[in-house]
């Protein structure tokens, strides 16, 4: 109840700021419509928007799951196998430079026009922060713990599994927060690959038809979804890493105790 009320208040203030900007700047409504018009469209077209949101939400969730899995796996591989590091790391980095229009025909060729080509594109965008952050965490393990494990005759796998990975979980959490933040746009970009459903498609279509109100209504829903997703992931991560100090836990900048 409390966080809900506070969330609604935040939303209200932000929407008011938006209305204020539109009013004061006198910006043309076909560049940025005011919240009232957008909300009207949102209400009028909510069935359409929700339907497309369903598609996009599925892509987001699949992309996030796959991206996390692939990100973790590639970080582990790059970290533990010098050969993979040498040849794989450049590929991972280079993969981030691939624009969607270059990849789109290939993705469609490999995966068809179904949901998987979009999920693949979203995954490509999502996995990188996970890989990088987790890899960084794996690199930074306290050498004392590594030494301890070595005196205990830990095998390579045990060392990674029981020391390096848990020690890197806070860093991984950091990567997951970034991933959760970019997952929605990842799904939208995925829909550029070629799609006939999803908020990205809806926005693209509305934009081409100059239905700017509809585009912003869809965008509003997407942004709201993004914020909720991020907050959910943040909450989950806090619960999952209870040994981790966190100055937000007390909801104050500095801990009072």
């Amino acid at each position, binding site marked *: 109840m409390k966080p809900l009320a506070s969330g609604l208040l935040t939303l209200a203030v932000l929407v008011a700021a938006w209305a204020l900007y539109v009013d004061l700047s006198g910006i*043309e409504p076909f560049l940025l419509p005011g919240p009232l018009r957008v909300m009207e469209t949102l209400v009028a077209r909510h069935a359409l928007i929700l339907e497309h949101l369903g598609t996009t939400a599925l892509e987001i969730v699949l992309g996030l799951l796959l991206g996390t899995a692939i990100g973790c796996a590639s970080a582990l591989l790059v970290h533990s196998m010098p050969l993979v590091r040498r040849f794989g790391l450049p590929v991972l980095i280079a993969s981030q430079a691939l624009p969607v229009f270059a990849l*789109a*025909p290939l993705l*469609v060729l490999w995966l068809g026009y179904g949901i998987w080509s979009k999920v693949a594109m979203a995954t490509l965008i999502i996995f990188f922060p996970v890989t990088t952050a987790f890899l960084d965490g794996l690199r930074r393990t306290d050498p004392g713990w590594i030494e301890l494990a070595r005196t205990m005759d830990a095998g390579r796998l045990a060392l990674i599994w029981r020391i390096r990975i848990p020690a890197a979980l806070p860093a991984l959490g950091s990567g997951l927060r970034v991933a959760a933040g970019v997952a929605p746009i990842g799904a939208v970009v995925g829909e550029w*690959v070629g799609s006939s459903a999803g908020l990205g498609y809806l926005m*693209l279509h509305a934009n*081409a*038809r*100059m239905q700017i109100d509809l585009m912003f209504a869809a965008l509003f829903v997407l942004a709201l979804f993004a914020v909720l997703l991020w907050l959910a992931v943040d909450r989950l991560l806090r619960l999952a890493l209870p040994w981790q100090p966190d100055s937000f836990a007390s909801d104050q900048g500095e801990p009072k105790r």
Partner: protein
Amino acid sequence: QKMTVLLDWFVNPDHGPLYVAQALGEFEKRGLEVEFIAPADPNDPPKLVAAKQAEIAISYQPQLHLQVDRGLPLRRIGTLVATPLNALVVLADGPVESIADLKGRKVGFSVGGFEDAMLSAMLARHGLTMDDIELVNVNFSLSPSLISGQVDAVIGAFRNFELNQMDIVGRPGRAFYVEAEGVPAYDELILVAHKDTVDDPRYLAFLDAIEAAVQYMVNEPEKAWALFLQQNPDLDDELNRRAWADTLPRFALRPRALDRRRYDEFAKFLKHQGLIGEAEPAEAYAVELR
């Protein structure tokens, strides 16, 4: 006097008159200093002109109807390409010989906003409806998706480009021209300006320069091509050469001239397809500069 002209898309032979006019000094002669800016998204230029961020935008007639319907303060002031370029394209050696063969097949499109309207008009002539086909948005890969068999046909292909592209890679296509299949003829490429500024004398000068360029192109096609390449050296390839030749006859010889009936008819067509709320008279969309 400085002017900014927003192209509809990347520089290509469709923009021939603009660059030839520039090369011939036709703008300079009339006291204009014109800068061309190519956007990445064809939807942006009309918005930016409507927001007075540029003087002139290159756009498409069907888009203009939609834009005016949504309240964008725009008017067509001139025509660049006076016929439709859009076509429904299939593989020449493919199974689709007539539009009727599309039943149960996949048609790719790249979101432009009115493909479905054209398509449904074309299908209607062959007794099909949109429910008889599967529409797939293929966005960036119009001809690749067709060539690699991902779709059986694409709508939104430009007859002067995509057909040549396919020919060059050895997979020639067959085009069904939209105006021959039940869509009213329209001007593919037009010049639009903010409706409050249509009296600006620079526009007249600009169109005069374009007219001069088109005349020159018709008279001296080889020299004109050389001038165009001089300004866009990276376009010197087989595809653009062919496209240039195919586009040449389609440029409006009288860029200022306005065919009111075209606008009336197309507005009615779009209204009938449910894409615009009201079919306004031509004056609401276009002006003829004098």
